[in-house]
């Protein structure tokens, strides 16, 4: 038991470092995913999609051009 408690600070610091590094990785992928999804949703809400033949009729690039003309 003496051995177990002798270097407890170093052991605790190692496990704390692991929690921080792995936690940072999980937070990074989670927040990044939400950010990308949000941006995609915003663009799609503006009618800009990757589909060459979207459900709304005209190809996406044509609709974007029309929107740009309207804004101009």
């Amino acid at each position, binding site marked *: 038991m003496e*051995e177990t408690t002798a270097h407890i600070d170093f052991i605790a610091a*190692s496990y704390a470092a692991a929690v921080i590094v*792995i936690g940072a*990785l999980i937070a*990074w992928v989670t927040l990044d995913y939400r950010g990308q999804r949000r941006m*995609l949703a915003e*663009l799609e809400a503006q009618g800009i999609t*990757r589909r060459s033949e979207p459900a709304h009729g005209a190809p996406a690039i044509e609709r974007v051009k029309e929107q740009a003309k309207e804004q101009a």
Partner: protein
Amino acid sequence: MALSDLANPSRFLRVADRLIPWLGGVTLLLFAFAIDQAMIAPDDYQQGATVKIMFLHVPSAWLGMLCWGLMSVAALGTLVWRHPLADVTAKAAAPIGAAFTLLCLITGSLWGRPEWGTYWVWDARLTSELILLLLYLGVIALWRTVEDPSRAARAVAILTLVGAIDLPIIKFSVDWWNTLHQGESVFRLGGSTIDPTILTPLLIMTAAFTLLFVVLLLAAMRNEILRRRVRTLHLMQANAAS
């Protein structure tokens, strides 16, 4: 479904969306079991309780090297076959590999202080591991420097393949040079030199870390595909407005 079918990013997204929650759950359970096994493992006769740091240090070192190996295969995919997911894999893997390499160096230092009396020595194994971290940081910086993803991918692929030279140096540094770092003890000809009471929890923890790596990589690849879609849409929007 053939593995090559996953080369389609849309199909990859569908598979990743389904796999990530399940794999995440299994990873969590495996980690709970691994931590339990690590905590009840006996102290080492020489290292004492600090052997518990090895349950983090060894898997981190393994993943740091595995990740660069994976990036090297992806680099070949980018340069030779121009595989659509190759540079996505390489870009997504780099920060994860860097994080595990950093964790390896931190836990190694924290183990070294009570065992060697110092946090750091310019030993061949430690130095080559530090070089691996610097290579990861170089790759991440290069991805950020070149705006066009396909041009960045080719430059990164070349750097990755050159950097792969560091992997055998890390692996065999303890054999080639007289190092303070201990010699190979887990995977070696003639079997492991570690007692099963410590080796078993170490292997379980390594499996948990590896599964975590897979989940993080899938999630990061999914993010990278979405980021490229956002970029494409922004370009379409900008082209239409000009």
